[in-house]
């Protein structure tokens, strides 16, 4: 029997389970063993639910034996610690919520459970998802599995690291603007941020409600498609989910890319390091070989979005964090870290009488302009490809003393987030230092099938996704 079961993708693990080469218990045990051995170095988890995971694995094996067929039956998954899990502590990596045991499951968790997953534990994030490094977590910084002196990115840093380090088969993250794609890029894994409203936010500790989008972080594009199939769809507990029926996301993966129009905007290469630029341009060449047509387009410079995003996000944060008063659950406000306090203050200011029109209202208007800018681009091209990050993973400590660090790191993913568009990070190379580099495919609203198709074709033509860090 394969001793490295934890390295498998969902697709591979499902095959092995179906062919009875190993059991869910074997698979889960392998992941838990890996967690025990690498966590001291990586710190991807806030909570590991070892006992429950083994129980669930045994149950899954019984069902497998009975021939039950579910999309994730017996597959170990890690979930970002800002998703409510009934009976399992949920902290959003803030001490304010330390010891908080939700009485209910987030819709994403409900759907994963119905699909048969084994919950391994809850992964680390920047406290309240405020950041792009996990350095604002009250539970320590997660380290990049490719080089533990470097950051994993964030806020879903724990989720991306848990996948890259093979501590889990797949992970659930959430993105407000970059929190799935950015850490996936730095950790060399696949991260899919769905269209806003495609996946339910119910039970996800709210960051910026008009932007938050849960999504999968996986070892392969096919896995991301499979996970999205489980997650996507209208939820009666989230009024902002779309009634549009989900596509069959696996069906289109193998479609040829002949004549697909890919937009490339110079604005997304400004300020990008030479190494990143080089690898993304190589990826574009590879895609040309696969038949796509590269078309030069003009988009607003992503730097404009930083101000817009900062105002809207801080405003919503200031309101969303108001419920953490320590009266009904959790601890008092004294437990908020300095990043959360800064955001509450800035957001409160932006919404104050006399400033609302100047800041919030104006930001909303510019947001509409950004949406229109993308709409215009999608009249010319099918998808847009750009670097996911301007840089490779920065060293530990990079975010400290720099309150706008996150916004700078997320500059290239913020515009599409603001516009509610789907995007996927695909690994496409490494720097000389051995740190991963990726590119993102951005598509129109609800075009997940299409961007998954592009990502899959690229992945199948390259080997980057098969490389593993040594820990």
């Amino acid at each position: 029997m394969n001793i490295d079961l934890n390295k498998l993708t969902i697709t591979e693990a499902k095959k092995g389970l179906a062919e009875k080469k190993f059991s869910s218990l074997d698979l889960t045990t392998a992941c838990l063993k890996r967690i025990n051995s690498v966590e001291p170095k990586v710190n991807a988890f806030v909570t590991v639910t070892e006992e429950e995971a083994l129980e669930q694995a045994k149950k899954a094996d019984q069902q497998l034996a009975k021939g039950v067929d579910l999309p994730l039956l017996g597959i170990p998954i890690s979930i970002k610690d800002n998703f409510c899990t009934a009976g399992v502590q949920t902290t959003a990596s803030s001490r304010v919520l330390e010891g908080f045991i939700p009485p209910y499951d987030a819709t994403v968790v409900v759907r994963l459970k119905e699909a048969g997953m084994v919950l391994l534990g809850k992964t680390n994030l920047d406290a309240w998802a405020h950041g792009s490094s996990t350095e604002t977590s009250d539970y320590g910084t997660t380290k990049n599995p490719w080089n533990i002196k470097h950051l994993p990115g964030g806020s879903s840093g724990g989720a991306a690291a848990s996948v890259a380090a093979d501590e889990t088969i797949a992970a659930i993250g959430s993105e407000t603007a970059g929190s799935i794609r950015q850490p996936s890029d730095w950790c060399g894994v696949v991260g899919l941020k769905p269209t806003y409203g495609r996946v339910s936010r119910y039970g996800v500790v709210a960051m910026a409600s008009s932007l938050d989008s849960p999504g999968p972080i996986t070892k392969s594009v096919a896995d991301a498609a499979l996970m999205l199939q489980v997650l996507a769809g209208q939820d009666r507990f989230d009024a902002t989910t779309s009634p549009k029926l989900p596509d069959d996301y696996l069906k289109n993966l193998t479609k040829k890319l002949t004549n697909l129009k890919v937009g490339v905007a110079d604005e997304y290469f400004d300020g990008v390091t030479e190494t990143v630029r080089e690898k993304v341009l190589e990826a574009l060449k590879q895609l040309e070989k696969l038949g796509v047509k590269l078309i030069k387009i003009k988009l607003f410079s992503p730097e404009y979005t930083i101000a817009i995003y900062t105002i809207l996000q801080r405003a919503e944060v200031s309101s969303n964090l108001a419920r953490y008063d320590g009266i009904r659950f959790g601890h008092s406000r004294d437990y908020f870290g300095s990043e959360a306090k800064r955001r509450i203050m800035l957001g409160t200011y932006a919404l104050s009488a006399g400033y609302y029109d100047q800041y919030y209202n104006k930001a909303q208007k510019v947001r509409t302009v950004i949406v229109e800018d993308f709409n215009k681009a999608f009249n010319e091209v099918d998808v847009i490809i750009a670097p996911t990050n301007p840089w490779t993973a920065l060293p530990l400590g990079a975010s400290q003393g720099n309150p706008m660090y996150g916004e700078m790191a997320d500059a290239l993913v913020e515009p599409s987030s603001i516009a509610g568009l789907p995007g996927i990070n695909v690994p496409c190379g490494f720097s000389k230092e051995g740190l991963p580099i990726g590119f993102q495919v951005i598509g129109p609203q609800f075009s997940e099938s299409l961007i998954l198709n592009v990502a899959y074709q690229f992945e199948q033509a390259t080997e980057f996704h098969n490389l593993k860090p040594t820990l």
Partner: protein
Amino acid sequence: MKYTPVIGLEVHVELKTLSKMFCGCSADYFGKKPNTHTCPVCLGMPGALPVPNRKAIEWCVMIGLALNCEIPSFSKFDRKNYFYPDLAKGYQISQYDQPFCINGEIVLENGKKIRIRRVHMEEDTAKLTHAIVDGEKVSLIDFNRSGIPLVEIVTEPDFESEMEVIEYLKRLQQMVRHLGVSNADMEKGDMRLEPNISLQEIQNSKNQDANKFQLPNYKVEVKNINSFRFVGKAIEFEIKRQTEILDKGETPAQETRGWNEGQNATLSQRSKEEAHDYRYFPEPDIPPIRWEEFQIANIKSQIPELPDQKLERFQKEYGLTDAQAIFLIESREMAVFFEKAVEEGKSKEVNPVQIANQIANRKIDVGKISPEEVISEIAGKTTGIISDQAELEKLAQEVIEENPQAVSDFKAGKEKVIQVLIGAVMRKTAGKADANKVKEILKTFLTP
């Protein structure tokens, strides 16, 4: 008096929907064990999201339509941010600049129009109780009320007396009861009243209307009053208090006051300087609402007969006096009960006036007795309807002589006045006259 009171009113009405405004919890919270009608949404748990109650929104629009409001085709919810322990999320979901209903009006008995500025939808807060438990002073919170749908109805400052305010309130209460959207039970807190009161010096200008456009430069709000009587007393008190201040050449402070029943006075609660900045912004968790015309038409078609219409019809159709009709339309249940009894009474020769008298005099509780029982009671003691032509003619003649004003009004073309005369004949017979016959006789006598 040298001053004209300028009074506006904010009324909160709790809707009696089955479930709460933004979650599936039962909205029937009164008298229930604390914190048993709760869920992650109305407790403001991390990650919980509001999903608006369609029925509640339709009922809010229905109230607006009944108050002759316009229904803008676009509306949205907003967050009103403030901290209070009874507010689970740290903000209340309400409506700020684009409410469901705007620009309505209600006409008072004296013909005066009270303009309705807006009718909007929001959610109720939890209930705080300050108690001593085991010798310790504590505040207890019951979240059963958290998220109950509330409709807020705001008037322009068009009232000039507490009588006008009370008349408006009674009509509003009756209206929401007839619409079947609220019990409007003051004692249970279904209806909460907040008058704002200021005084306007009466100028010698002949153009009173021009005066109206210049509102006083201060406003005193009295919060959360739970009875019509107290509203009257609070307004009376404020008029007196503010008059004394103005007489000294000073301006009353802009502030929020509360009615204190024990002291029979309003007491200062919060000054202008302490006013909240609610930092309203559009609720990102709820998509905006866009109405199609047919949807509004559909809600309109569900509006039952309203009290004013019912009052007129009861007088016309059943020959009731003003007082009788007003008594019967007090609640929809009462009106329905009466009409059922009328139907039942037809076969037993019991007429509507007798039924009306029986209901009023015996103070019948419509929840405890059936219309059939009332009819049998009346039929039991009635020897029968007076339909003797000669006797009725004699009584009609008497009534015509006793009511010269009504007679001349009728002859001048006010045909409705005949109801007054029919009523008078009815009273003479203790309601035993055949109303239709009386009408015919009166008409022959009065028509040349």
